[in-house]
C-alpha cells in the first residue's frame, strides 16, 4: 500500500519568546521540530506499511529549511520525502494550505502511485486549527476519518477500513472505504527510534523538491495570501488586568497560618463557595 503522511515543521513552542516592545515573535535561535501531533500519524503509517507492505511518503509545505523535518522523518523509516516549497505559498491560511497540499498529494499519486491513506496529525501546535486535514479530504474527495484512536482492521482487496474514532462522550466504531484521510489522535502510539540503516539512508536520500509549477498547480490565485479568504488584521498581546493578584503576606507565618489566611481570602471573595465545597468535598 502507499501511504502519504503530511507533516509540518513548527517552532518548538516551549522556547518561543515575544519581544516585549514590538510584540513580534522572536524566531531567532528558536529550534524547530516536527509538529508533535504528526509523529502519531507517521508512526501509525509506518506500522501499517510494516504489516501490509508498501511505502510511506512524507510531505510537507514550507520554506526550504523544512527539509530538516523531512530528513528527520526519513530517519524514523519513511521511504520518501517531498518538500513543497514556493514563495507563492507564503501567507496561506487553512483553505489555501489544503489546496496546495491536495494538489501535491495528487501529484505524488501520479508520480509514485495513488495513496490508499493520507495521514495528518490531529492539529499543529502553532496553528492549532485542526482544519487542514478535513480540507484535504474534501478537496481530494477522500473519506474523512478524524480523531482516530485506533485502526482496527484494513482489507486492501475489499478497500475497507475499520477504525475507532474519538467523538464527544465516547468512541465511535466506523467502517469506511479506502482511499481515506485519517487525522490521528495523540497518545495512540509512540514514534520508533529508527534504525541505523534508516539514519544512513536518510542522510543519503535525495529529497524531492517541488515548486507550485512542479506540483502541477496552475492557478496561483488559489495559493498563499491571494488564495486565503481569511485575513489577519491585527496581532497583539493580551492586555493585563488592571490590578495584579492580591498577595498573601508570607512574612513570619507558619504554613498552617498561611493556609488559613489563603482560605479566608478565598471565602471572603467568594462566600458562596464555602457551602459548595463542604457539600462536594470536605469530610
Amino acid at each position, binding site marked *: 500500500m502507499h501511504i502519504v503522511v503530511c507533516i509540518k515543521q513548527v517552532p518548538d513552542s516551549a522556547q518561543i519568546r515575544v519581544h516585549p516592545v514590538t510584540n513580534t515573535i522572536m524566531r531567532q535561535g528558536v529550534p524547530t521540530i516536527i509538529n508533535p501531533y504528526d509523529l502519531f500519524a507517521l508512526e501509525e503509517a509506518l506500522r501499517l506499511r510494516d504489516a501490509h507492505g508498501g511505502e510511506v511518503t512524507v510531505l510537507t509545505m514550507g520554506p526550504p529549511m523544512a527539509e530538516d523535518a523531512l530528513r528527520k522523518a526519513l530517519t524514523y523509516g519513511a521511504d520518501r520525502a517531498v518538500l513543497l516549497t514556493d514563495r507563492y505559498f507564503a501567507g496561506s491560511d487553512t483553505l489555501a494550505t489544503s489546496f496546495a497540499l491536495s494538489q501535491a498529494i495528487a501529484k505524488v499519486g501520479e508520480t509514485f502511485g495513488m495513496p490508499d491513506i493520507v495521514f495528518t496529525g490531529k492539529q499543529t501546535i502553532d496553528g492549532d486549527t485542526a482544519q487542514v486535514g478535513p480540507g484535504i479530504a474534501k478537496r481530494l474527495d477522500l473519506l474523512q476519518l478524524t480523531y482516530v484512536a485506533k485502526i482496527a482492521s484494513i482489507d486492501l482487496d475489499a478497500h475497507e477500513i475499520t477504525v475507532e474514532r474519538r467523538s464527544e462522550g465516547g468512541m465511535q466504531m466506523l467502517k469506511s472505504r479506502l482511499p481515506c484521510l485519517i487525522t490521528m489522535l495523540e497518545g495512540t502510539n509512540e514514534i520508533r527510534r529508527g534504525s541505523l540503516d534508516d539514519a544512513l539512508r536518510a542522510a543519503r536520500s535525495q529529497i524531492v523538491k517541488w515548486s507550485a509549477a512542479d506540483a502541477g498547480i496552475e492557478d496561483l490565485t488559489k495559493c498563499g495570501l491571494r488564495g486565503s479568504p481569511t485575513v489577519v488584521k491585527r496581532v497583539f498581546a493580551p492586555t493585563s488586568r488592571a490590578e495584579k493578584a492580591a498577595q498573601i503576606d508570607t512574612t513570619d507565618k507558619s504554613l498552617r497560618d498561611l493556609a488559613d489566611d489563603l482560605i479566608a481570602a478565598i471565602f471572603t471573595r467568594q462566600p458562596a463557595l464555602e457551602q459548595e*465545597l463542604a457539600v*462536594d468535598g470536605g469530610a
Partner: protein
Amino acid sequence: MSTANRETPSPTAGRAGMKKELPEQFKDYRHVWVFIELERGQVHPVSFELLGEGRKLADKLGVELAAVVLGPPGEATWHAVAEAFAYGADLAYVIEDPLLAHYRNEPFTRAMTDLLNTYKPEILLLGATTLGRDLAGSVATTLLTGLTADCTALDVDADGSLAATRPTFGGSLLCTIYTLNYRPQMATVRPRVMAMPQRVDKPVGRVIQHKLAMAEEDVVTKILGFLPDNQSAKANLAYANVVVAGGLGLGAVENLQLVKNLARAIGAEYGCSRPLVQKGWMPADRQIGQTGKTIRPKLYIAVGISGAIQHRVGVEGADLIVAINTDPNAPIFDFAHLGIVIDAIRFLPALTEAFTRRLSPHNRDKLAS
C-alpha cells in the same frame, strides 16, 4: 498542518486595510446562525454558549439569530429546537432524517452546505468540539470560504464584518481575523470560552424545515458501534465548579499527588498545564489551556504554573483564580486574583489539611452551635 501563523504578517495587515468590496453574489447573505450540536439525545452546552454570543452579534448587526438543528425524526430533535429558542434563537432551521441520528461527516456536511447555500447566512458559529471541527473544516472547504478556528472573542466591526480573535503563535499572542470577500464567515469556539446565557422559557418560534437530499446508500461510512466513555475515570474539567492544576513548578512527577490530594479534599477536578502532558506526567484529557480544556470554574487554583498566554486563555473565565508560585514575577500573578509566593511542595499539604479542617461537617456543626 495549519498555517494560522503566517510567515508574513505585515502584507496581510496591508491587505486587510484595503477597501472591502463584497462580491455581488454574497451581498444577500444575512443573519447569524448557530449550529446546535445534538448527540445521543443531548445538546452539547457549547451550542447554548454560542447562542448567547450569536445573540450579541445579531443584535449589533440588526439581524436575526437562527439555530440549525440536524437530528433524527422524533422527540430529541424537537427538544433541541425548543431549547434553542429558550436560549435566544429567533428561528430554527431543522432537518429531520434518520441519517442524522449519529454524527457522520458525509450526511452532516451535505445537510449543512445545502442549508447554507439555500438560506445564505452571513455568519455561522460552531462549537470547536471533535464534531464541530470535523464538520466545520468540510463545510468551509466545500463552500471555499474562510474559517477561523478556536476563537476566544467575537465582534462585528463598523462595516458589519465578523472580527474573530484567537490565540496565535502557539498561544503567545492574539490575532484578529476577518473573512473579507467570502460568505458565510465561519468561526468555531471551544466549550466554556463563552459564558452560558440565561435560559428563558419561550414558546417555539418560527421553524423552517428542510429535507436531506441523501439516502443511506449514498453514505459510505457506516457506524458499527459506540463505546461510551467511563464517566468516573474521565476528567470533566470543562464543566467542573472547582479545579486544581499543577505545572512545571512541581518539579517531579511524584508531587502531582499533592495536587490530587488537594483536589480530593475540596471536591475539585484536577488538571495540569501543557508541559506536563508533553512530559507524559498526565494524560492529554487533563490539559488546561488553549490546546487542552478551557475551564470556567468558580474557583481555580494554579500550582507551580507560570501562566503562559496559551494557559491564560484557557482559565480566564474562572470566577476566582488563585496562584501558588515561587516566582513573584511569574505572569500568572498578572491575571490571578489571589496569589501566594511560596514553595508549593511545602505549602500544599498544609493547605489541604486546612481546607479539610475548615470544611469537615464536624467542625461546621461546632461553629454553628
